[in-house]
């Protein structure tokens, strides 16, 4: 990208300040260039389908449905991206979703008949236990995660059949609300036809994002680290604010306002982004994925970390099971088939590296949204489901190929 010339151009920067090439500038974005790229791709795909569907994609109720239909992918992708960053894979989450869904349904139906809240907690605990089981084999016995979770895929599908039979319907309405319900609009009423609570949440979200971005920028400044140009920064903030603003307004016109699952996903994204970006545990995950031996020789307990990321994805599979079961209104033994592949695809579209060490929660969420928008857009256009599958496969392949070519080009310069 940068060219060297023999012409003696007076340096615009003071002589002792290091010269910053474009590549370094992109690094100065915090290694975020790839994230912007994937975000841009999402925007392009949304606009594309908005045109192709004559504006139906972003109708209020469709937008709400987009989150409700794809919440499970986003929840699983959060756990999956952590597993992938550490250099593993989890093929079992789909089966775990069915198994835990069965457990939740059984515990809240007669004869056990626990309150639905308790049943949900039991489900989450069982999910974490399943994760601990698989984590034990991966971390302490040393069996590759591919094998352990392939086995888990079979084991927990089988157990799901045992627990559920075929279908367990007749679940309490309060439980079903988790997936199909909305935050209560009565709380704040309406502004015109818009749900006031949704608008408030949207405003808070925008405010929080602007605040954290500004603070991060200040911290960089304080240490004389390279920050993006003020114009670029403002443009970025403005784009985010407008984007979320538009989505909020659309959503506030929908039948129910803010879907409950959107809140669940939102909380998970915030918590896990913090965990991955700011905590010692998160840092250890990246260290292990980047160079396992170097991490071990730096005193990172690689086994412990491996174990806990599997406990964690088991827990998140439990959350996804609750959402999926509530959405179906029943536990189904065949539920969750192919979910593992959806989650893995979301991670790789979102920029995670197959070799580990690279990947972000936000990327995985955007990857999941890209898949979700494709699904919804193609469905609105009444594209045959078989073709939908083929198209999604090509998108995955092209996203990773594009990433690889980009990296290769960067490497040769």
């Amino acid at each position, binding site marked *: 990208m940068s060219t060297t010339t023999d012409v003696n151009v007076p340096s615009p920067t003071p002589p002792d300040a290091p010269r910053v090439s474009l590549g370094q500038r992109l690094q100065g974005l915090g290694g975020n260039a790839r994230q912007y790229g994937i975000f841009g791709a999402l925007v392009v795909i949304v606009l594309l389908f908005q045109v192709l569907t004559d504006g139906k994609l972003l109708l209020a109720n469709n937008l709400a449905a987009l989150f409700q239909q794809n919440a499970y992918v986003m929840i699983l992708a959060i756990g999956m991206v952590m597993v992938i960053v550490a250099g593993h894979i989890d093929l079992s989450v789909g089966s775990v979703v069915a198994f835990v869904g069965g457990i939740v349904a059984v515990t809240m139906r007669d004869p056990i008949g626990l309150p639905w809240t308790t049943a949900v907690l039991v489900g989450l605990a069982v999910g974490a236990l399943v994760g601990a089981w698989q984590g034990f084999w991966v971390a302490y016995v040393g069996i590759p995660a591919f094998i352990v979770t392939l086995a888990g895929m079979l084991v927990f599908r089988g157990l799901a059949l045992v627990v559920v039979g075929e279908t367990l319907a007749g679940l309490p309405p309060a439980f079903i609300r988790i997936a199909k319900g909305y935050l209560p609009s009565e709380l704040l009423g309406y502004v015109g036809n818009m749900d006031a609570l949704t608008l408030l949440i949207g405003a808070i979200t925008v405010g929080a994002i602007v605040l954290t971005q500004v603070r991060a920028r200040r911290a960089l400044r304080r240490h004389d680290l390279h920050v993006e140009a003020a114009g670029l920064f403002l443009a970025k903030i403005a784009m985010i604010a407008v984007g979320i603003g538009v989505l909020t307004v659309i959503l506030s016109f929908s039948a129910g306002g803010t879907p409950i699952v959107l809140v669940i996903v939102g909380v998970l994204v915030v918590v896990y982004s913090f965990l991955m970006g700011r905590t010692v545990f998160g840092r250890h995950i990246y260290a292990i994925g980047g160079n396992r031996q170097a991490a071990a020789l730096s005193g990172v307990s690689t086994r412990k970390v491996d174990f806990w990321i599997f406990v964690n994805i088991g827990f998140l599979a439990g959350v996804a099971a609750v959402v999926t079961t509530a959405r179906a209104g029943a536990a189904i033994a065949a539920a969750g088939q192919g979910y593992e592949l959806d989650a893995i695809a979301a991670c790789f579209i979102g920029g995670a590296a197959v070799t580990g*060490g690279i990947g972000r929660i936000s990327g995985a969420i955007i990857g999941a949204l890209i898949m979700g928008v494709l699904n919804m857009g193609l469905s609105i256009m009444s594209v045959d489901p078989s073709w939908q599958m083929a198209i999604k496969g090509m998108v995955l392949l092209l996203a990773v190929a594009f990433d690889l070519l980009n990296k290769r080009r960067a490497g040769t310069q």
Partner: protein
Amino acid sequence: MDTEHILEMRGITKTFPGVKALADVTLAVRRGEIHAICGENGAGKSTLMKVLSGIYPHGAYAGDVVLDGEVQEFRGIRDSERRGIVIIHQELALSPYLSIAENIFLGNERAERGVVDWNRTNAEAARLLDRVGLAERPDTRVSDIGVGKQQLVEIAKALSKEVRLLILDEPTAALNDEDSAHLLGLIRGLREEGITSIIISHKLNEIEAIADTTTILRDGRTIESLDMHGDETVSEERIIRGMVGRPLDHRFPEHTPAIGEEVLRIEDWTVHHPIDQARKVVDGASLTVRRGEIVGLAGLMGAGRTELAMSVFGRSYGTRISGRLYKDGHEVTATTVQEAISHGIAYATEDRKRFGLNLIDTVQHNISAASLGTLARGGVVDREEETKVAERYRTELNIRTPSVRALVGKLSGGNQQKVVLAKWLHADPDVLILDEPTRGIDVGAKYEIYTIINRLAEAGKGVVVISSELPELIGVCDRIYTLSQGRVTGEVARADATQEHLMHFMTMDKDGIAR
């Protein structure tokens, strides 16, 4: 046609970015002799053999490779093999799960129209095994036989290619005495059959016993070629003088030792090889390190220096480790890296890319990797503090990077090494073991690293330096231990340290008998 010399290499020069690995090297090998090549690590022996075998193709070097009087232009290893040159590398290149016969004919299969003729394969393999004196069935899996026998399979493979010039790189480094003796006997036998051998070895007693001519390389130059059967008998001391006889060509910063209490002591430390568990890699080693002292560990390749250091550092190498470890006079155990670090022991690896750094992460994150706990509160990393720390080391150690948020993989070797050092400096250990701290970095950066080492000692830490460069050890260390075949064979104070003296201990056999 030159009938006396099978091979002449004339004026070979090979440069890598920033380094001249070979400068005008000349080598003349007579037909049917055993020709030894000696030199310190990094003298250019392996590079020269890579030029000869076509791994560095024609055009990638300057000078001529002349075989049977004709200038050769090898484009790859296949070209050189077609002319009868076969190289056997130190790390054996056998496929462990294939049989002996399959390995012998790998890439050179006994086949008819793509279909392997197994009868012919096994019959010919049996004949070759007989020739090298290996009593194993041809269908035995290679992973089921020991290293010594694997070496013989390599030679059988070479013979199957109708080798005329056989190159062996450190062939006995991993072998026990018996296997070594058999191998050397075999090479002599091949000489009777008219096969010329070039043998690279650190074991001077073996060279003295087997070689007809010895060529010595030093700093990428030919120093001399010695006729081993000439009027003047060539002793090991004579070879050593040739290998090390350079004046100290780098400068070392001044260092006045202020030596305090003992900080680390190892007694009767024995480590077995992780796979070949019967083999002792470190054998009853004992040593001490005091505060403010810089202690060197000298030894040839395979002497067990890295293995000793890593096994002390939380048993990160080896199995069946025994011995006692004392820290500040108290016996301690350190069975994990975390424990070792908590006892104030740190180890900076010789292979920074494989074991030292996360190349796809930033400078800042690599510096904090071994001490994240001290930079965090309630499990949450204080990123501002972390940045401050990284910036401090960037200034103190003069790490040249556009930003502490730049990727470590983009830095030069010397700066990467400084990041490794910064990581361990921030962990604030009492004893810091530095394994080949200046490997692969330029002279200027070396000086900076030496300065850092001195500063550490002045701050009252015990520093252990492992290095293959003897002048470096002599220039930097207060006291030097020599290792040979897993044993501590000598301890030399700085005042008495000469390269000849050290090399004498380093080449001692394991019974401690100097030859």
